[in-house]
């Protein structure tokens, strides 16, 4: 289907395509195949009831042919209509097959004519409608009807129970669903975790080994934040290890993670702690970067 023009198209005369028989091939002026057919029918200069469908089909098909020769992009609608008219034409010309199913060729043609006539009538009716004097154009009403010697009306508010219930349900639903999203946002970002770690390590003057989860406990009042806090803090720790700011160690897989500020430990040889051999993967890098 072709989209019709935007609602406020330029009011150019759209019948421009239909001159005296000689057609300028310009489909832009037409709003689809029916419009084109009506314009073509008008060139037959007969009442639509007495129009020759065969002649109309020929006119349409040759018009489409011209348009295609002019390498115009034809909307599918026009081609569908062309195919249908070609089919109708062949049905009308050929003798009817003995056992025909569905409507006869004549019935199809008659129905088609009715459809064209209906569109034409609607067009005529719409012209008559638009020709009527219209408010704000030819007729005017009071601009400010309230400017009168009237006492103000009492106001009564109205709302239906349905309004009330649907408003409530909609809000609660929105709230219920948005609350879920809000919780998902309760995540410790890497930056958050690092900032907290730095604050903590900076505060700790003794720079002893301390358990990561121990330190996190003071922030973690809500249990559902544990996973995100631990993960982010651990990642932040690794980052800080890489930058040579902290040491990290772990006795065994899933054992508590220990960390301390590197600055405090410069005096102590790093590599000689026997436990470090058991350090988990996360503790590996600091040694290699030590050099």
């Amino acid at each position: 289907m072709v989209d019709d023009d935007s609602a406020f198209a330029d009011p150019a005369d759209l019948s421009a395509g239909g001159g005296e028989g000689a057609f300028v091939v310009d489909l832009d002026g037409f709003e689809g195949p029916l419009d084109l057919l009506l314009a073509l029918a008008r060139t037959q200069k007969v009442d639509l009831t007495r129009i020759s469908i065969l002649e109309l089909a020929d006119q349409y098909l040759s018009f489409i042919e011209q348009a295609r020769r002019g390498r115009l992009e034809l909307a599918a609608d026009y081609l569908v209509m062309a195919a249908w008219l070609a089919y109708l034409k062949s049905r009308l010309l050929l003798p009817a097959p003995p056992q025909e199913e569905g409507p006869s060729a004549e019935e199809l043609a008659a129905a088609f004519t009715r459809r064209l006539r209906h569109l034409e009538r609607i067009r005529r009716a719409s012209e008559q409608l638009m020709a009527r004097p219209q408010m704000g154009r030819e007729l005017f009403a009071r601009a400010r009807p309230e400017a009168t010697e009237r006492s103000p009306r009492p106001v009564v508010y109205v709302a239906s129970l349905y309004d009330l219930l649907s408003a409530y349900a909609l809000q609660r639903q929105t709230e219920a669903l948005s609350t879920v999203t809000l919780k998902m946002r309760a995540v410790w970002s890497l930056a958050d975790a690092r900032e907290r770690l730095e604050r903590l390590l900076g505060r700790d003057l003794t720079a002893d080994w301390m358990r990561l989860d121990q330190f996190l406990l003071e922030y973690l009042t809500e249990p559902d934040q544990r996973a995100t806090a631990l993960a982010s803090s651990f990642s932040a720790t690794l980052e800080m290890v890489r930058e040579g700011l902290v040491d990290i160690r772990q006795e065994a897989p899933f054992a508590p993670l220990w960390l301390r500020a590197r600055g405090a430990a410069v005096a102590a040889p790093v590599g000689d702690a026997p436990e470090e051999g058991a350090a988990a993967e996360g503790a590996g890098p600091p040694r290699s970067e030590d050099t």
Partner: protein
Amino acid sequence: MTRPAPRIDLFDVRPDDERAVAFARDLRVIEALLFTASQPLEARAFRPHLSAGADLDALMEALTQDYARRGVNVARVAGGWMLRTAPDLAPALADLAPEQRKLSRAAVEVLAIIAYHQPVTRAEIEEIRGVSTSKGTLDVLLETGWIRLRGRRRAPGRPVTYGTTPAFLVHFGLDSVGDLPGMDELKGAGLLDGRIPAGFTIPLPTDDPELQADEEALEADPLDFTLSPPPSDDPAETE
């Protein structure tokens, strides 16, 4: 051409003629009510303000006559009465009309189809026109306030049905959709596609707010945002 007889002065009554006094007062009240109204007023809008047993038809007839030659006329519109300027003054008043956007041919045609076939679905409009209707066209018509979503057709897909509004009748100066021009010609015409038998006639259009038998209410569909209420323009609400 004969001139109509000079009017009698409806407001010139003898104080002792009680009926005439009541009639003149009722006329004045109707006049004032019409003057203050922004919508066409129906009979029931006048009743409570008129004297007991007032003959509204006679009153309206007298007032309509009285205004007929004035610069403002009483018009029967959308099932009621309203005052509006006389049609022949349009040229003199032309510069009062704000620059109006002209409806495109497509929009005019869709409006006419809605008016003459209401309640009608978009698919039916497209069937008649043989082209798809852009959403913009319906939006523009909805914006004019002349058409409205009526309900949904009880049919697969539950398509929305369209119809005209009282504002449509007022704008085009129609008392009811039965007064649409060209109705007779359309009534006898066969409708839509070839599947409909030749004797088929178009049902009379109706803009009755009551839903038709094959319509159902247009309840809000949470997924259909085109029907959702517009965002509140209360700034405090938007946080």
